[in-house]
């Protein structure tokens, strides 16, 4: 297990911004590095506790998967689903080229 870092560098924050798909400028990166470091110092408090043999709890209630019969139900009409689209083409959401040259992939 990686040991939690007490302090985040600008480079680490830049990496997290990339994972988060957030285009941030260097000033923002630097400010977030400081602020998130402060928060991480605070959350390091959790290391005071012995959590050996404690099962992680992602959900407070005893929930199980809910299934229904596989029967067709009315769905959102295409025009309603596309009504908020920033750009549509025919019955599709339109985005810049995904594959090949100039796709950024």
């Amino acid at each position, binding site marked *: 297990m*990686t040991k939690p870092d007490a302090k985040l560098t600008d480079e680490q924050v830049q990496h997290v911004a990339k994972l*988060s*798909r*957030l285009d941030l400028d260097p000033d923002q990166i630097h400010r977030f590095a400081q602020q998130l470091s402060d*928060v991480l110092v605070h959350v390091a408090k959790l290391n005071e506790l012995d959590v050996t043999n*404690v099962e992680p709890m*992602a959900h407070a*209630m005893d929930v199980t998967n809910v299934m229904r019969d596989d029967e067709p139900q009315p769905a959102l009409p295409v025009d309603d689903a596309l009504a908020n*689209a920033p750009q549509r083409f025919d019955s599709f959401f339109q985005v810049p080229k995904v594959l090949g040259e100039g796709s*950024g992939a």
Partner: protein
Amino acid sequence: MNPTQTTLLELRDAIAAKKISAKQAVTAYLDRIDQHNNTLNAYHETYADRALQRAQDVDADKVTGPLAGVPIAIKDNLATDWGVTTCSSKILENFRSPYTATAVAKLEAAGAVILGKTNLDEFAMGSSTENSAFGPTRNPWDTHRVPGGSSGGAAAAMAADLCAGSIGSDTGGSIRQPAALCGVVGFKPTYGRVSRFGLVAFASSLDQIGPLTRTVSDAALMLSVISGPDERDSTCASQQPRDYLAEVDQPVSGLRIGVAKQYISDTNDPAVNQAVDEAINMFRSCGAQIVEIDLPHTQYGIPTYYLVATAEASSNLARYDGVRYGRRCDDPKDLIDLYSRSRAEGFGEEIKRRIMLGTYALSSGYYDAYYVRALKVRRLIKRDFDLAFSSCDAILCPTTTAPAFRLGEKSDDPLSMYMNDVYTVNANLAGIPGISLPGGFTTVTHNGTPPQKLPLGIQLLGPVFEETKLLRIARMYESATTHHQVRPSL
């Protein structure tokens, strides 16, 4: 009667008895909103024409139900198939939902008249309603102070009588904390009691919808209307709704009230501890037994919450990508650029900060150290409550450490803002219901300004799905006090 100076229940009964028309009531609230919303900024938008039409339908007996004609405000993170649903975010500024949230649909099916949508911290992330793309809401008790958050618009609207009842959402205290700072009742039910369908997701394992009202009985009535199973939310509990109002006036006999030393800290404002002491005395004089309980993991709630909630948020907010709805940047050079710039332009600072924290806590190499560890501590926090409720019916504690703070006072210090939720987050982590009640007042001065009276909240926490008993206990406190009857002068 003046329909804006009453309780939801009294107004409901007056409309039902045709002592006042629904149209008169709705008109009075719309006029009051016109008069005060410029100062308070509690509402994003109102639906005057729609509301008046609904009111006329009530008066013509075309619309009936337990809330017939009652003017209600809803938080602007609840989807409606009319108007816009913004979440106080630029990224959803023009978003028109194709469907309506179950809780809102249930209110309307019960005859309620939706007046409009209230301000919140962007995506419900915040404790002051200052993180709104459409400006902060101001506290009706002192307009230089915040109303709390994230349901700050709902709490301010309720406190200022700009609605007869309202609904908000509570992920870490977002109903209870603003209710406390604005001097109204705020009720977060058990996780799953109310369907989350149509509630814009922040942290799905913590989010819960609930009422903000003038009185406990009003909250009981609203919960009866909005709760119950929903096939469109598979985490919604299967329990059928109950008539919480029918039982609310029955005191609980043999009542045991738990008090934990971890909540009565020296760092609380002395007035807050005094309000809790007075509540203890009041319950004792009702014949309740006061039980000392131990919640040893209380202090770990904030770090646990800010890892769990941000991790879930980073995943939930991935959907805002500029593709299907919401803001899209100009001239994207490729798909990644479209995602990254649309999100950077559309999200406010706090949203970015939380997405980053959550993404970091879930990222390769840090997942176990942060996220999984937080989930383990979450279990310890829940165990504390399970054990405590074996010896008491409800836990009495403050809702907040202090009364409302001034606008701008904490906005440059995220961590100090996060500490606002120290007494509320644990209920969300454990899934238990909690209610904040008007618990008294304190007088403050700031730099020689005239003394200002500010409300304080006390909180009652109960075991999961024990809302009936929790509301009865809350009503016992309310019926022995007059704090809820005091209104701010506007």
